[in-house]
């Protein structure tokens, strides 16, 4: 090649790259684009298998879409008309029939259900998978335990396509717990082939690839960069999804995620700051869906073992000094459901979450504090998780300002995300903000975690009360045998007590915010709050 020609071609290439690069080059690529859904989010999975060690929340999304469970939930119309999973109605997924007996439930498997490699889904696979979930330890085992599913003996193979699950005890949460993400059915033969003595459940294998029967399968995964999923055309779990291919890219910068949406390059994003969502909503260029977290509350917690928060009057004073409305307006831009300021004469409902009757009343807070013997206030620290600094930081600054008005001087203590749970577990933080939400949407489930005397990690206040425990266990037992009257009294009992003793001050129910292009439809809200690709449609 002559030097001159070479230089020409090089400048040509360089100039070509500078031209407003039309990303579509050929008809084939244009087709690919219309059949492909491009999702952008801040972080991606660290493991494709929810049974793995330390699988993160984005990993749950992969599991949900690439594996099937025996049963799933029906949809109903939720807040704002958004399809919302129906807690009480189940639909078969891998099972074609479910037969609930007194102390067991029997599932008949769909005959045509096949794993991605073509092997039929058998009762043996189901048993192996459930055995796996209760045996691997960590989160999956724990979640199974929440529905009283703890022993491998509970899962019985009746014949090739029939499985029976024996109840350890009567528990209303057993069936719903079979419809969460954890009890997914894994291709046991394939995984066993790739297991080793050190790793009998083949966790290393399923970490890198999906081995399920779900509607999608992962074809490429570059950790921290992208996940590519292709539709499984032989899916038997439901109607064939419309989207052929899902590309999920990690874009750490929130501003860029917004730019990608606004320019029409990305189809969906769901973890933008509230302010961006409000602005996108107002601009009207995109479809924005906001749904409150099911069974989730952001709160201010106080450790009742640490003076002066051991005094209920002090806690009430703090509850009266929280700038509730300011938080709603300035921190959340209205994208949350208030959990305060219920009318004084409003009766307690049999529901959770529900608003408290507290409002910002500085004079009353001052009086309460004086009554408690702290007329000049006191000093303490206010902690929050830096992992969610976007909301937590401004929230804590507003609370700090407001508490200063009644003489409580707070120092803000920012705790890095990696350290947050360790600190919570120590139960030494006097005052902090945090959020908790349960997959299973039952009031007693929330209270077992957060208020029960057995003091789980989420009872961050170290709150222990005999009366509370009686109400909670009363409700659990009543639900198991279907005693509605007793259940209702007990639920109202524990809600009232939680608001009277006020170890934690509910602030609001956060929203899940999803932004989509106008041509994308079919979003459904699920308890796990991640995307279900199976119902999404791109026009």
């Amino acid at each position, binding site marked *: 090649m002559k030097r001159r020609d070479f230089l020409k071609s090089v400048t040509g*290439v*360089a100039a*070509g*790259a*500078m*031209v*407003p*690069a039309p*990303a*579509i*080059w050929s008809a084939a*690529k244009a087709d*690919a*684009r219309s059949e*492909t859904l*491009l999702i*952008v989010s801040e972080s991606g*999975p*660290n493991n494709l298998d929810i049974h*793995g*060690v*330390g*699988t*993160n929340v984005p990993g749950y999304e992969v599991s949900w879409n690439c594996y099937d469970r025996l049963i799933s939930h029906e949809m109903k119309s939720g807040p704002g008309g958004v399809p919302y999973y129906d807690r009480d109605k189940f639909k078969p997924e891998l099972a074609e029939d479910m037969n609930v007996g007194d102390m067991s439930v029997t599932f008949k498997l769909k005959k045509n259900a096949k794993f991605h490699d073509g092997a039929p889904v058998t009762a043996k696979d189901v048993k192996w998978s459930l055995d796996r979930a209760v045996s691997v*330890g*960590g*989160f999956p*085992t*724990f979640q199974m335990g*929440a529905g009283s599913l703890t022993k491998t003996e509970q899962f019985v193979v009746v014949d090739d396509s029939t499985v029976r699950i024996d109840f350890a005890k009567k528990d209303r949460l057993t069936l719903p717990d079979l419809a969460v993400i954890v009890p997914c059915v894994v291709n046991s033969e394939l995984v066993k082939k790739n297991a080793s003595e050190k790793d009998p459940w083949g966790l290393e294998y399923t*970490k*890198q690839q999906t081995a399920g029967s779900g509607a999608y399968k992962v074809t490429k995964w*570059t*950790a*921290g*960069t*992208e996940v590519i999923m292709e539709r499984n055309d032989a899916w038997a779990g439901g109607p064939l999804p419309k989207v052929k291919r899902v*590309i999920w*890219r*990690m*874009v*750490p*910068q929130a*501003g*860029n995620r917004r*730019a*990608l949406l606004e*320019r029409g*390059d*990305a189809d969906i994003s769901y973890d933008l700051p509230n302010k961006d969502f409000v602005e996108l909503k107002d601009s009207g260029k995109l479809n924005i869906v906001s749904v409150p977290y099911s069974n989730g509350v952001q709160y201010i917690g106080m450790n009742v073992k640490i003076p002066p928060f051991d005094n209920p009057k002090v806690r009430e004073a703090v509850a009266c000094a929280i700038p509730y409305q300011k938080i709603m307006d300035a921190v959340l831009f209205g994208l949350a459901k208030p959990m305060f300021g219920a009318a004084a004469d409003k009766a307690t409902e049999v529901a959770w979450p529900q608003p408290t009757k507290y409002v910002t009343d500085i004079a009353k807070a001052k009086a309460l504090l004086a009554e408690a013997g702290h007329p000049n206030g006191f000093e303490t620290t206010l902690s929050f998780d830096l992992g969610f600094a976007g909301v937590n930081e401004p929230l804590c600054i507003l609370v700090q300002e407001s508490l200063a008005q009644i003489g409580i001087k707070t120092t803000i203590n920012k705790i*890095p*995300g*990696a*350290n947050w*749970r*360790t600190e919570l*577990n120590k139960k030494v933080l006097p005052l902090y903000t945090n959020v908790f939400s349960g997959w299973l949407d039952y009031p007693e489930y929330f209270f077992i975690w957060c208020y029960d005397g057995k003091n*789980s*990690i*989420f009872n961050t206040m170290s709150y222990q009360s005999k009366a509370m425990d009686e109400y909670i266990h009363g409700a659990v037992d009543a639900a198991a045998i279907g005693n509605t009257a007793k259940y209702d009294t007990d639920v109202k009992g524990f809600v009232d007590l939680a608001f009277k003793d006020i170890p934690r001050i509910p602030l609001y129910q956060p929203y899940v915010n999803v932004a989509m292009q106008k041509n994308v439809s079919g979003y459904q809200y699920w308890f796990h709050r991640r995307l279900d690709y199976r119902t999404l449609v791109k026009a």
Partner: protein
Amino acid sequence: MLTMIGKRLMFAIPSLIGVVIVTFLLTRALPGDPAAYFAGPAASKEAIEQIRKKLGFDKPLIEQFFRYTNDLAHGDFGNSLTTGQPVATEIRNRLPASAELTLLGLVVSVMIAIPLGVLAATRPGSWIDHLCRITTTAGVSLPVFFTGLVLVYVFYFRLGWSPAPLGRLDVFYSAPPSVTGLYLIDALIARDLETFRSALSQLILPAATLAIFSLAPIARMTRASMLAVLASDFVRTARASGLSPSTVIVTYAFRNAMLPVITTLSMVFSFLLGANVLVEKVFAWPGIGSYAVEALISSDFAPVQGFVLTMAVMYVLLNLVIDILYGVIDPRVRLEG
């Protein structure tokens, strides 16, 4: 020469051992408990203990250390918990991404900075000297993430000239068969001009961001060093002997002024490679800087150790290359030093 290189590498061994020990201890001293972090949102104390056991963090520190060094000796850097992948693979995949970006940024920067510095030095006080001063001051005082965001805003969001800031390739392209790991070169080897073009257009904005940032040290150093050399006796002699100004500046002065510039270049390069985290974040670039920082945030030990170790090795090699270059540029400098 070869024995010199061997000797230099031998000297590097104690410092590498030091790096291994220090990073091990430092990561263990980090606040945060990886077991609690990875046990998930609904973990009980028992669940956390189970995870801790699985990760081997329940063993005494000294045993963990021996296991770690033993793995290292077998080329195993351990597994990252945040990405779930072996650290060695991740670094091997991500290093070329950072290297490609940094190299291109540096090349652009050198192409602008060195002529600018030389011109500024030959005409002190002129408009070009002021231009040099202004660009370098501006370049170094604008934070990289800011420059990056402004470039994205203008060239992608407003004008639409640049492709979406989605990493190394447009979503619908697949990477060229890996030879060097540098997409530009790999695409050329595979004679895939479309991919080359896509990779290049993705590279332009982040490389420009880096170039703007790294202009300053290189231009300033070139100018200062040129000024010193131009004032020296041999340049005066050369001028007095009637050599043309261009011969004096290019052949005599510039070559002698190169040494400090090369040193600065090596520093800038190694600094950029690890420290362009912000650029990587802004452009969703799958490099090692963002990898290490994410690992640090979630107190994920293995990648942090792997990253520091890789950087240490790179430093050693880079310094070696620079020393050899010294010898080439200035025969007075010998490798003994």
